[in-house]
């Protein structure tokens, strides 16, 4: 019997090629989307699951309040880990990590390593990063020890054993030799801690001092039991209060720490990640919903086509019933068919998703591999998806088919399937999803365009960023004059970081404010050419000069005599001055930076458009991590080549690397850009799938109305009126769908835009364009069928009865 079912299912598929193609291919595309998005979502949800002690590890984040300004940061001072291990019996171990970069040299090889992580030797006790070579107790115990990741070890040493080898490391704090004491597995893709090289924390000077402040270090604690977390969390604020003399946080000011369970950091933390940007739960929901919606569209196609085709299968059902088939047997047969179709589609979907994987990796900025599907847990999910889809798609058609009365179908009484309204509802549903995705795509793209085109207050075009260090700083004047020999180089400046996203937080006070009162501001150390290089507009006062620079410190930690500050409009306002009033006023940025306002610049976007432009202070200091070069924009390749040559002569110790400022800028909106791209692709796919279904459906309904069309033509109907007749029903449904989808899309997108302080209003034409697009494509799809039917010779169409 089962064999008979299989046979009939395959023969049905084979005989109705259009139907089979639409159903199988549509489901396969839907399943492909679902599989890929599932991969993404499950990857995000799997963060740090591989850590065997994950339930006992917590990340420590800092929370402080200065004059009512509350700040939170993912880093702490060096004291937290050792102090907490001593003070709290529930803490078993602590580990401090610092993310850094360094130039590493071995023989002739020279690489700029961007993922160098300084770590306490307790690292291997707390985390489950598999040490392949070396002793976990001692590998990071002494100063100047390195543990290389497997692929880094291969990069430097090939198949040679790296243990005991010495490499030269040029980090910001100076150059020295390091001994390789271990090889560790590469950091898993779903690890919040990412490294290529681990270096011993004891190498750092700061490791010798325990400080609450100078918060630059990620701190993780291993608790004795998972249950200890709640109690410990409650104890910390009180404990820190008892240390207020040490932390110098008195009165309403405080410094305290939050503890986050390791596995919640990537998606649930309110502060950012230490080693890479955290994921966002919102996007997990968005992508998960898109996956489900696309799959629903594909299922709807199946349901619609199968129920429409039920008319053709009715005779078979009738015969089988007359022959004694029981309803349950027929139900089983049709569910079986849906399982067969779904699993063919699933196999095709797996094939398609493996082909689309490189594209999807690009789209989602991840590195997934097809092998992930072959893991038992994932395979189970794949099969599960197949079963669920078979049932969802198969149950309704099976019910419709099983319900047929043999007496009626065998006599040919059955002309409509009686499922018309249900099918119409499904089409509305399908196109509502499609319209929703189209509108959302438009809004996301518009907001991204708005961000791209918004006047930033500085010039982001043709600015090259060169990563720099102490040695570059020492030669910056020579570098400037060498670069400027090329006429395409307009300005060169050194700064602590790029103006795209200024992270440095400082406590600033007007000199007439009480000693213990501060305003939290962003601060950016620069040199005298910064304002010119970035094209900032000075509203009052004058630009920094060489003389101002000479008063400022050259090395980190030096103290200066007198500072000349440039503040932005927002800072002037915060302090209660107009730009003109501000010039010449005395302010200071902490104990060691006292001076006066030299100029006020127009507000510019030095952070994400999500946040309002806050107060910013730019001040002269002679060290920096980036060199900014403003180019004219002509002969870019030649100019870059020229700069590289000059660089290599002047600074042989460091490879020449560059990035454009607008690339850096775009990174700020990487998540949004990614979302925009994913929305576009999946909106396109959803409209494709919906139209595929509509095409099949209109083919069948038109075929069913062949006799009607023939009669109308005999009676004198024009081709146009018949096309209109056949198309209008579908068009009505699409219009209803747009009406339903518009307010929903508006609501969802408005919520999304609320994340941005600087945002677009959703333009009314978005809905119009989405509507026209959906209607247009639907019309095109349906008219292919209806024109064909309308052109048919009526004699022929009447004969089909």
């Amino acid at each position, binding site marked *: 019997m089962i064999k*008979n079912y299989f046979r009939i299912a395959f023969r049905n598929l084979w005989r109705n090629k259009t139907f089979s193609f639409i159903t199988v291919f549509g489901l396969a595309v839907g399943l492909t989307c679902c599989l890929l998005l599932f991969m993404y979502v499950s990857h995000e949800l799997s963060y740090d699951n591989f850590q065997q002690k994950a339930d006992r590890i917590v990340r420590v984040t800092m929370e402080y309040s200065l004059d009512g300004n509350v700040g939170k940061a993912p880093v702490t001072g060096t004291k937290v880990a050792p102090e907490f291990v001593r003070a709290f019996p529930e803490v078993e171990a602590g580990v401090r990590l610092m993310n850094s970069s360094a130039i590493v040299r071995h023989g002739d090889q020279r690489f700029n390593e961007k993922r160098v992580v300084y770590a306490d030797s307790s690292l291997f006790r707390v985390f489950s990063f598999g040490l392949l070579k070396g002793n976990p107790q001692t590998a990071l115990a002494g100063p100047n020890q390195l543990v290389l990741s497997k692929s880094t070890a291969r990069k430097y040493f090939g198949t040679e054993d790296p243990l005991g080898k010495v490499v030269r490391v040029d980090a910001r704090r100076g150059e020295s030799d390091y001994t390789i004491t271990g090889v560790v597995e590469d950091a898993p893709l779903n690890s919040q801690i990412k490294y290529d090289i681990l270096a011993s924390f004891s190498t750092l000077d700061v490791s010798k001092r325990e400080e609450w402040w100078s918060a630059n270090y990620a701190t993780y604690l291993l608790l004795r039991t998972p249950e200890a977390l709640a109690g410990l969390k409650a104890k910390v604020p009180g404990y820190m209060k008892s240390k207020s003399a040490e932390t110098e946080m008195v009165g309403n000011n405080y410094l305290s720490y939050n503890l986050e369970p390791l596995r919640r950091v990537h998606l649930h933390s309110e502060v950012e990640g230490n080693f890479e940007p955290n994921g966002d739960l919102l996007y997990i929901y968005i992508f998960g919903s898109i996956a489900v919606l696309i799959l629903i569209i594909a299922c709807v196609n199946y349901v619609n086509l199968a129920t429409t085709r039920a008319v053709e299968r009715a*005779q078979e059902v009738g015969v*089988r019933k007359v022959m*004694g088939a*029981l309803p349950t047997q027929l139900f089983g047969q049709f569910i079986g068919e849906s399982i067969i179709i779904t699993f063919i589609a699933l196999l095709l979907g797996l094939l398609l998703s493996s082909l689309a994987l490189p594209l999807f990796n690009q789209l989602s900025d991840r590195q997934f591999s097809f092998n992930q599907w072959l893991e038992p847990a994932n395979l189970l999910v794949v099969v599960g998806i197949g079963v669920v889809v078979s049932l969802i798609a198969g149950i309704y058609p099976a019910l419709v088919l099983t319900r047929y009365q043999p007496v009626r179908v*065998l006599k040919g009484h059955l002309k409509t399937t009686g499922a018309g309204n249900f099918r119409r509802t499904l089409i509305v549903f399908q196109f509502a999803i499609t319209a929703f995705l189209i509108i959302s795509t438009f809004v996301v793209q518009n907001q991204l365009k708005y961000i791209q085109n918004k006047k930033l207050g500085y010039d982001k075009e043709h600015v090259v960023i060169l990563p720099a260090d102490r040695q570059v700083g020492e030669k910056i004047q020579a570098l400037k004059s060498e670069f400027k020999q090329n006429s395409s180089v307009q300005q060169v400046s050194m700064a602590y970081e790029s103006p795209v996203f200024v992270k440095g937080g400082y406590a600033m006070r007007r000199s007439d404010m009480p000693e213990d009162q501060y305003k939290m501001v962003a601060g950016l150390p620069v040199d005298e050419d910064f304002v010119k290089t970035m094209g900032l507009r000075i509203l009052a006062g004058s630009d920094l000069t060489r003389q101002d620079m000479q008063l400022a410190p050259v090395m980190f930690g030096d103290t200066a005599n007198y500072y000349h500050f440039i503040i932005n409009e927002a800072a002037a306002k915060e302090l209660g001055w107009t730009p003109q009033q501000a010039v010449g006023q005395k302010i200071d940025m902490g104990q060691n930076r006292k001076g006066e306002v030299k100029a006020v610049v127009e507000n510019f976007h030095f952070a994400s458009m999500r946040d309002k432009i806050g107060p910013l202070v730019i001040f002269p200091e002679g060290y920096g991590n980036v060199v900014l070069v403003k180019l004219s924009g002509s002969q870019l390749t030649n100019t870059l080549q020229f700069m590289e040559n000059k660089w290599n002569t002047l600074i042989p110790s460091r490879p020449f690397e560059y990035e454009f400022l607008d690339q850096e800028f775009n990174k700020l909106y990487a998540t949004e850009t990614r979302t925009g791209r994913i929305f576009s692709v999946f909106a396109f796919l959803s409209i494709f799938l919906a139209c595929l279904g509509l095409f099949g459906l209109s083919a069948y309904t038109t075929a069913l109305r062949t006799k009607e069309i023939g009669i109308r033509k005999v009676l004198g109907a024009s081709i146009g009126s018949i096309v209109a007749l056949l198309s209008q029903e579908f068009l009505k449904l699409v219009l209803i769908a747009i009406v339903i989808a518009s307010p929903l899309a508006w609501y969802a997108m408005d919520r999304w835009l609320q994340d941005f302080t600087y945002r677009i209003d959703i333009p009314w034409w978005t809905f119009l364009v989405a509507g026209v697009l959906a209607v247009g494509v639907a019309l095109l799809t349906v008219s292919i069928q209806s024109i064909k039917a309308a052109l048919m010779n009526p004699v022929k169409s009447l004969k089909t009865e």
Partner: protein
Amino acid sequence: MLRTTNLQKVFTTEEVETTALNGIDMEIKDGEFVAIMGPSGCGKSTLLNILGLLDNPSEGVYDFYGTDVSKMSERQRAQIRKGNIGFVFQSFNLIDELTVYENVELPLLYLKTPPNERKDRVEAALTRMNMMHRRNHFPQQLSGGQQQRTAIARAVVATPKTILADEPTGNLDSKNGEEVMNLLRQLNEGGTTIIMVTHSPYDAGFAHRIVNLFDGKIVTEKVHV
């Protein structure tokens, strides 16, 4: 023996009530060959459907070999149907996706006949209907006469006591029609009860008895000698 007493069938739609059968009393003995005739809309097919347990009467009693089946559910009727009644339709009603062999095999599959026995019986039925050489063809590849012979093979494969034929020659030319009627006669001579609805007086001539229906009532009965 089949016996109906005061059989009524009323079809109700939203607006009209149509009485298709209005008090049918009839008795069909084992081994009889009965033809039911009458103009279109007189209720022949409705009667045949009820006799074939495809439908229930609105009122009255239908005694099917000693069991009153008039109030049974579709499920119960399906159970009695299989193995007891074979059907032959005007439009053949073969399943297009199955071959001749597979179509004939279908009733035995639902009867859960063991594979070996199934094969023997399907082959016997096909041989009897002279269709063995076409066993692997699909219905569309056959002539009307061949399709109807396949349908008859399917009707007899489970050796039912009764065969119901609804205008079995309606879609056939006279030569093929003659052949089908001869087959039915042979089956009847072998002991199978045959009830046939027909418009054709010639076909009706093959029956022992002709029942004439008009407006849902039996108007005349004629017995051949």
